[in-house]
């Protein structure tokens, strides 16, 4: 009985040890049976930038070639005529101006050089003594080969330099990729700025029926200084015979006149060959009751 129990205990222990051994071997060894996992490259942190509704891009300064202003001839003003004074009988005649004696032309004194200096100027400085020549008749052939090789290298270097220089010049000649884009973004900034400016000038007609659905486009033309070239013009939108709509359009025309001048817009847009803007007035999103 006791032997059987002992056998069982030994058997169980051996079995347990064996199982533990198998599990340990699997735990330690199995990972090495598979191929090592390829670690992914480190994640690139990308910042999501919240883009505001209004662009903040500042318009690049445009190099303006200043034209040399023509020099206008100064207006000649007629000299005020002095009343002729009549000399009274007892007037003493003004003294006659004495003629100035021409001074004798000044003779420039020649610099006087001392004999010792003259002598010193005559003495030429001696050239530095040349180092002893490394040219040896025994090594002439080797030197010729070396010089040919160096010459070839020099030509290569010069060619490389030239090509690099050429590339640089071409780069300089080509406008940068985003130069045009920046100009366009400047235009976008102008659009935002103008929109904000007009917001402050537009008095919406009070209480017009159907105001929520009204829309009007007004075109303006401007001079280089931003002032209006002519009266703003209604472009399209709706029926001007409708009293409500006519009042609405009038309010938009007043707004563009009140907001003038448009200096900055004129400066940028004239460079792009534009001298007019169309303002589209649209109060739909204002939350008006009607």
């Amino acid at each position, binding site marked *: 009985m006791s032997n059987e129990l002992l056998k069982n205990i030994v058997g169980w222990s051996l079995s347990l040890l064996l199982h533990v051994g198998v599990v340990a071997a699997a735990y330690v060894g199995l990972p090495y049976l598979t191929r090592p996992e390829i670690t992914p490259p480190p994640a690139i942190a990308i910042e999501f930038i919240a883009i505001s509704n209004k662009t903040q891009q500042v318009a690049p300064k445009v190099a303006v070639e200043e034209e040399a202003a023509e020099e206008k001839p100064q207006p000649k003003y007629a000299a005020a005529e002095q009343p002729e004074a009549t000399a009274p009988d007892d007037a003493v005649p003004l003294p006659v101006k004495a003629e100035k004696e021409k001074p004798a032309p000044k003779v420039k004194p020649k610099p006087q050089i001392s004999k010792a200096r003259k002598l010193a100027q005559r003495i030429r400085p001696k050239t530095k003594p040349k180092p002893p020549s490394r040219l040896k008749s025994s090594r002439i052939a080797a030197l010729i080969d070396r010089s040919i090789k160096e010459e070839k290298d020099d030509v290569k270097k010069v060619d490389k330099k030239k090509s690099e220089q050429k590339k640089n010049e071409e780069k300089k000649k080509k406008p940068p*990729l*985003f130069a*045009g*884009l920046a100009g*366009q*973004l400047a*235009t*976008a900034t*102008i*659009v935002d700025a*103008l*929109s904000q400016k*007009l*917001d*402050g000038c*537009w*008095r*919406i*007609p*009070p*209480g*017009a*029926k159907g105001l929520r659905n009204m829309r009007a*486009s007004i*075109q303006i033309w401007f001079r280089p200084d931003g002032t209006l070239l002519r*009266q703003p013009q209604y472009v399209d939108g709706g029926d001007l015979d*409708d*009293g*409500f*709509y*006519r*009042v*609405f359009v*009038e*309010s*938009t*025309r*007043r*707004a563009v*006149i*009140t907001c003038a001048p448009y200096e900055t817009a004129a400066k940028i*847009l004239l460079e*792009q060959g*534009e001298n*007019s*803007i*169309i*303002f*589209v*007035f*649209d*109060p*739909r*999103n*204002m939350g*008006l*009751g*009607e």
Partner: protein
Amino acid sequence: MTFFRVLLAPFLILIVSGIASAQLRVDVTRGSVDPVPIAVPEFAPVLDVETSAGPLSDIGASISQVIVSNLVSTGLFRAVDENAFIEKITAAPTRPNFASWRPLAVQGLVTGRLEIKPDGNLRVEFRLWDVVQEIQMEGVGYNTPISNWRRIAHVISDRIYSRLTGEEGYFDTRIVYIAEQGAATDRKKRLAIMDQDGANQQLLTDGSYLVLTPRFSPNRQEITFLSYFNDQPRVYLFNILTNRFEVLGDFPNMTFAPRFSPDGNKVIMSLAEEGNSDIYVLDLRTRKVTRLTDDPGIDTSPSYSPDGSKIVFNSDRGGSQQLYVMDADGSNVHRISFGKGRYATPVWSPRGDLIAFTKIGERKFRIGVMRPDGRGERLLTDAYQDEGPTWSPNGRVLMYFRTTRFQNGSGGKPSLWSVDLTGFNERQVPTPFDASDPAWSPPLPVTTRGR
């Protein structure tokens, strides 16, 4: 990064160059809703003479004051202080110096001149100038008896208002209301009429009999109202221009809230029979009465839509007092109010887009509006007891009466108030007596002289 740029650049260039190639367009989506600054200098007399209504220069000053008062009362305009005026407007027919008005931020400038014609009538000319665009927007002259100067001021106000807002004016109109006097137990109620600004008050009845619910004809200078003469309820018709009363009908039972149809040919009202009130319509030409509703609930306060095709009324047929709309022949009845509380005295706007009502709830009576389909309910007032709304002819302003409770809690003091459709610009209308149940007239005919 360069890679992304290279990828994005063509797209961006395509998009932006597409924009740039077109005309530059700027969207303007916001604006100011502040009152429009206007200037109305005194109307200048061509020759300052003494008239039956005072010196002509005084009349000119009064006309400009009435115009300013009218326009400012709308809440849509702001009058520039006359002390700030730089240019003095004279009777000379010249353009104003716009540069003098621009620094004052004036948008509309009203100039006027007046003179006495050889026939003794007053001639008033006015011009409305757009100071910003430097153009004349309106220029009209009127001939009228001198005593009518105030009305001319209202007519001019209407022209200016209409030109600057696109809406019809409502200044040359009148209000009929119930003037109340005396203690709560012995209250005298008389029919009274006044200009919309409270001027020219007149009492139309002597107070010996009770007068209720006056309503203006939408197209004639006539009033219908309910009166208990000799304790007998009668519906009367009163013509303002001829001062003639006419009995529309003797109704044996209780009658409530008569109101004209839009064409003025019918009067709709509620009649009570055996304790049940229903809607009836009376044809003024044939005097024929037609029943429109037949329900055990109390149907009352009917009001036509401006095109006459529908009628709104209140009824408790569903268990509580609510608003219902039906076709003009009484068919297709459907409920439109579903908010908390009870709804009463519905009135269809002359524009047709809204229905005004009195809402009863939260221990208050308040004035509100909703669309004819019941949506978009808005309360415009918030006082202890506001009720009985009436629309201005252009559907822009509501007038109603407000009862202010006495200190001891018994009864209250009614007065007339007006409020803009937006809920702003709430104003009390001055009356010499306590006033209730106002009704707004249509615009007075301009060609009619005298009153």
